[in-house]
């Protein structure tokens, strides 16, 4: 078991013939993901890598292949349109890798998805991987290993750093999810924590947050009230100055709100073990398993 994706995931890649889309589609195929279709308007009828059929629209791809998950690698000004299209085609799980989507676009996308019961992961996220089963997005497969730790993070490369520590020390993962660094995202910490709590293949959870917003504080309260599995947490940005956007659009301390100290305190009061540095993830988890 795992969360959100598994052996039954049938993936359509939106933007499969683009520079990023084609590179990562190849990587996903090599990992063993069932990439059943690609979409690039105007390139319908072609075959990607000689084996994946390309369609003009997502609706055609779904009708022809039974795709149940989509991943989006299209430029930022076209990405909201790609999300609408996937939801309209009835895809229940949409992963958007694209960085740089205007936030006002996302305020309109979110209610559209809610009306159709679709879940969005991202945007501006590395996607997710259920090691040994399926990978959707850009997380390097070679640093992951199958196992029983669930990981959820707002970051990309910091996630790889932590996953690498886990794998090297024999702690495999059920699913690793990158929820993205934007202010408005489709799937938040609590959504992932709830899924991990319900997943019998997950024994413990690693949560990697960062400065900006209050998602971590809310997640901490949820952990306290609902979660029975052990949780280990990290917050990046203790040295970040207020009022500056630290790379991620959502990583900004506004006034005195959204600081690392505030989030770490919330973690501690919820019984989440707080890592002082990424390498501590191993010892903190081992003490709780």
């Amino acid at each position, binding site marked *: 078991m795992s969360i959100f994706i598994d052996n039954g995931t049938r993936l359509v890649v939106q933007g499969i013939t683009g520079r990023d889309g084609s*590179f990562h589609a190849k990587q996903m195929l090599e990992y063993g993901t069932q990439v059943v279709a690609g979409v690039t308007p105007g390139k319908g009828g072609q075959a990607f890598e000689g084996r994946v059929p390309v369609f003009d629209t997502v609706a055609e791809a779904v009708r022809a292949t039974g795709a149940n998950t989509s991943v989006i690698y299209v430029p*930022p*000004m076209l990405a909201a349109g790609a999300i609408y299209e996937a939801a309209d085609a009835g895809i229940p799980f949409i992963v958007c890798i694209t960085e*740089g*989507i*205007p*936030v*006002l676009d*996302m*305020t*309109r996308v*979110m*209610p559209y998805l809610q009306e159709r019961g679709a879940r969005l992961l991202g945007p501006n996220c*590395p996607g997710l991987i259920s090691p040994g089963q399926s990978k959707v997005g*850009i*997380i*390097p497969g070679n*640093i992951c290993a199958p196992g029983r730790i669930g990981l959820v*993070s*707002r*970051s*990309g*490369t*910091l*996630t*790889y*750093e932590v996953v*690498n520590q886990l794998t090297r020390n024999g702690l495999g993962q059920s699913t690793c999810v990158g929820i993205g*660094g934007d*202010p*408005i995202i489709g799937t938040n910490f609590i959504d992932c924590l709830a899924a991990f709590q319900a997943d019998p293949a997950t024994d413990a959870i690693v949560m*990697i947050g*960062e*400065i900006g*917003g*209050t*998602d971590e504080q809310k997640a901490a309260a949820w952990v306290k009230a609902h979660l029975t599995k052990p949780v280990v947490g*990290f917050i*990046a*940005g*203790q*040295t*970040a*100055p207020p009022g*500056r*956007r*630290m*790379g*991620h*659009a*959502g*990583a900004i301390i506004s*006034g*005195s709100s959204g600081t*690392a100290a505030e989030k770490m305190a919330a973690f501690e009061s919820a019984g989440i073990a707080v890592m*002082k*540095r*990424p*390498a501590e993830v191993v010892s903190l988890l081992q003490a709780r398993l």
Partner: protein
Amino acid sequence: MNLHEYQARALLKQAGIPVPDGDVAETPAQVEAIARRLGGPVVVKAQVHAGGRGKAGGVKLAKDPAEAAAVAGKILALTIKGLPVRKVLVAPAADIASESYVGIILDRESQRPVFMVSAAGGVDIEEVAAKTPEKIVRLAVDPRYGLLPHQAATLAFALYRDLKQVRAAARIMEQLYGAFMANGASLAEINPLVTTPAGEVLALDAKVVLDDNELERRPDLAGLRDATAEDPSEVRAREAGLTFIKLDGNVGCVVNGAGLAMATMDLVKYYGGDPANFLDIGGSSNPEKVVNALRIITQDPNVKAILFNIFGGITRTDDVANGIVAATKQFPVPVPIVIRLTGTNEREAVKILEAVGMTALNDMDDAVQKVVALVKEAA
């Protein structure tokens, strides 16, 4: 992207919001001419991207054009929070009967634009929110339908009782919402929204922050960026496609990915060092980006050592190694470099570095401890 007050006022004016006359100037002589044209007492305000302008002496009243020129001379000589004042706004000193606050933020929680209005205006709204949250009325707008008439009225009634003023304020709410959406803002605020003794409702000061992600499709807005109001190293970094924020420490950091970059700075601090910057070279691994990163960091005289922390995924570590080698051939790097790299093409990267006598570490903690030790030795 932060706009100057004079730019924000212009956007509000375009949307039809009543904003007092006024103009921007760069010399005392220009200020004097504007003050003469406006007539009567004026206020001269520093145009810098820093809060607390008033406390820093950047906002002054002047009773006539000569005094306006004199205070402008002083303000234009100021440096506020490290930023030199190059422009001032000159506006009539308004007679004020009451001050309110009106703002729209993009709220992460409701995932909608949210109005915040308060009859307690003219002060720091964060302070009001922290101490007396009951004095702020909040209202989330569904962007599919926009601000509905009864919502605008509700917000206006939270500020005024006089029906003429309520109508004027409701109209301003609609106009402000229009400006917020039309310009892709993440914050638009009028503080204060004032009433005059004659009963008029006016926007006296404006603040607008635009979503950087809008700028690609809005060259007109991108043109509002004032590069002279930013740190020159940050301007160079942006032009080179790097995300860079200058800090006060002495350990230069070059990292791929924003989260890892923050965690690296934190680890430098954890081991007793002080980061000189935040720098994310991004997901692609163009060696030229690495060259530019090193060029910008070596220009900071505070930097005593440089740390590379690269976790190769999409970023190929051999590309980064090639960039480091290329940079050291193009210009002198006068401080030691500590390199940590792991992931994609790690073996090739190590070979490239070893060929020029450099070494690479594999572990993040080891690398950070080493660079902190080097800086302490140099001190």
